[in-house]
């Protein structure tokens, strides 16, 4: 059961990788760091919401200052864009530069404010005794903040490189990944101390299938949440207009824009979506393994990497493939660990070995279709 739980976590993260790859055709290395960020945010959020009686935390005043600054900047940008620029352009008789920052900034500011509001809601829920509901709200919070992060990353670093050669984007992605990791390790952010996530569920074993498979409440919650999210995503991508737009852009951005789709907006939306899923995975992970470790050299980065392997194995660019791949990798790891004598320590090697095998024999993955590259 563990395997399925871990597998669904991999699937959630793999979905993010696969969506970004489908649309932009590049591997977003920074994705696993969003996952780590999500886990730590849930931890901080839970602390602030007062879910852990041993630990008291509160929203530092700096949050309000940052938000205020953002709103102010948004306001100034809006004033510049809507009022000053036209006026001055007419006066000076030339066109002044027109960044569209006011839109982005106000979006960021609004998003941030809503996040803080949600946090207060969680606090209220927790003190009212609805621990479980508070947990769900924390999940929402983590998703929102990570979505915001994904949005910012995309706008700031990937957008200027839309037309650059793929290698450059890859290097940038690595840079972003390292940036996120190291910022997270700073003492005034999360620090390098490992810490413990307050669990929101009582420790309960539901039932046992056979002798080896134990089904625990935590696992059920993890799998359940993951499945719900995946179903929602599936519905989003295949049954809604925005989903159709995403699929169109993944086929061919120029044609999509010819059809009237705002490609920039779709790309941003995809990033945000992927980041939110990663955040959810982070939250669920912290529930399942409450001891949180931060360091870059630890298994967290490896986890993200394995999720990427899952995405590739399932067929990168293919959403259902990512889900399948996640499950497969989870099961593979589990069986290797259990049934091979030295398996537990060697399971990383097996996962990467599986990647190499798949890449050699069927590079498009299990569910993917091989595309011939046209000149």
């Amino acid at each position: 059961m563990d395997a399925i739980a871990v597998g669904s976590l991999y699937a959630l993260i793999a979905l993010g990788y696969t969506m970004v790859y489908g649309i932009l055709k590049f591997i977003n290395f920074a994705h696993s760091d969003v996952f780590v960020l999500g886990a730590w945010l849930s931890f901080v959020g839970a602390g602030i919401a007062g879910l852990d009686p041993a630990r008291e935390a509160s929203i530092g005043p700096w949050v309000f200052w940052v938000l205020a600054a953002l709103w102010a900047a948004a306001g100034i940008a809006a004033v510049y864009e809507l009022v000053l620029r036209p006026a001055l352009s007419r006066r000076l008789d030339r066109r002044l530069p027109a960044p569209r920052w006011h839109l982005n900034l106000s979006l960021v500011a609004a998003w941030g404010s809503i996040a803080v509001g949600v946090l207060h809601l969680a606090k209220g829920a927790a003190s009212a005794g609805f621990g479980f509901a508070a947990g769900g709200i924390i999940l929402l919070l983590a998703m929102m903040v990570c979505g915001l992060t994904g949005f910012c990353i995309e706008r700031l670093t990937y957008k200027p490189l839309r037309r650059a050669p793929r290698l450059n984007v890859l290097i940038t992605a690595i840079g972003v990944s390292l940036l996120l990791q190291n910022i997270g390790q700073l003492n005034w952010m999360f620090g390098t101390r490992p810490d413990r996530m307050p669990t929101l569920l009582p420790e309960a074993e539901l039932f046992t299938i056979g002798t080896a498979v134990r089904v625990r409440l935590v696992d059920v919650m993890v799998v359940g949440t993951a499945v719900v999210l995946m179903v929602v995503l599936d519905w989003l991508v295949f049954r809604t207009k925005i989903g159709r737009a995403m699929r169109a852009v993944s086929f061919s951005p120029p044609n999509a824009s010819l059809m009237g789709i705002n490609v920039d907006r779709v790309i941003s939306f995809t990033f945000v979506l992927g980041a939110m899923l990663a955040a959810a995975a982070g939250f669920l992970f912290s529930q399942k393994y409450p001891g949180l470790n931060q360091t870059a050299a630890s298994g967290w980065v490896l986890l993200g990497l394995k999720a990427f392997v899952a995405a590739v194995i399932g067929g990168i660019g293919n959403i259902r493939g990512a889900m399948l791949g996640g499950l497969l990798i989870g099961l593979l790891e589990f069986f290797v660990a259990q049934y091979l004598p030295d398996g537990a320590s060697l399971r990383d090697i097996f996962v990467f070995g599986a990647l190499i095998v798949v890449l050699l024999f069927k590079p498009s993955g299990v569910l993917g279709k091989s595309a011939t590259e046209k000149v």
Partner: protein
Amino acid sequence: MSESRGDNSRATRGLLPGPVRSILPFLVAAALALLLHGAVRPLLPEFFPRVILDIGINVILAVSLTMVNGFTGQFSLGHAAFMAVGAYTAAGIVYYGSYRLFGDAAVHGGWISGLTPASGSFATGADMLFLGALLTGGLVAAVCGYVVGLPSLRLRGDYLAIVTLGFGEIVRVLIQSQTTDTLYDAQTIAETPVWKLPQYLGGPVGFTGLPFYTSLFWVWLFAIITLVVAFRLKESTYGRAFLSIREDEIAAEAMGIRTTRYKVRAFVIAAFFAGIAGGLYAHTIGIQLNAGELAFMKSFDIIIMVVLGGMGSISGAAIAAAILSVLPELLRNPPSVLHPLMAGLLVLCALVVLVFARGKVRALVRLVVAIGIYEGIRRAASAGGVNLADYRMILYAIALILMMILRPQGLLGLREFWNIRWVRRNTPPAKEVKAGP
């Protein structure tokens, strides 16, 4: 494309016969390295030789990675794994060979080995052992490069990155989990059959007790050899094939170049030099050979050197390696602009700017602003108790991102150090090829 053509030897063509011409740079390399080790080293204050040694090793690593990343445009993220393979192989041979031959693992080398030149003969059998070990390490790394490269170089860029990353992790885990503590009893070592010895490579603690053979001579000998080989490779028909693969793989294939074969060749050569660098690294004083440290972080360090210097530029990679080797030490204690040496350096920069820049006033203003920002950050950091060295990785990451957005060709792009037009002429310079495949 760079201006220089393949027949640089025109200058010496008439003077020396062919075979001598090929070997000449290596002899010069040996001479220069000896000079460095013997004559220059005693003149330097204590801490410098170590720094220069580090620079040398990083130059080898950066230049070898340029061969893969820069020339052929393939993105390899596991270069440190080859370094680890070479390091452990060389270390095993030197350590156990030393025990078998001499009965202990002290430095038995002559004058050319050891950071502080030992007295005694110029070179001894132990030095030959060390040299042999280095070359073997490089060969083993090259074989690994072949084994890894052949299947994976058929993949596209992104996948190769992941596979090489995975390979790096696999090597690390294998070394740490499958090897056990080193033996350090001469009796036991003499009794253990040779094929069992590779098991005792230290395990998680790393390989301790290695004799410190690495000296300025060895490091810079190989560094210059690497540079020469890289340069020759770039200017040869092989190099043209590599660069064409980088530009457009499909077109190159259409032109009859067997891309996979060439990519594998570049990979293997790069792995060889990385293995040698690893062997040199392992025997440096103050280094504890540990597979955990030769993992992705080290690969990333090398990558950032290559990217900063310009993918495809040998001298760029070397210069970036030098700068980035010194940077951590600098960040420990950033010097004030008023410090005499620093001030001198800045005055030099100002002079260079004055002579070469076009918009002189604008350039000077920028220089002053940069100095001001630097000093401001430094003052703020020390007053606030913030240690800049902690932010080193963040600075690297931001620098990388900004570099990719603003100046993707790095410092030098595809050009070499001597190809830069220092003085502008009236005719516009030749259009530079854009970076990246």
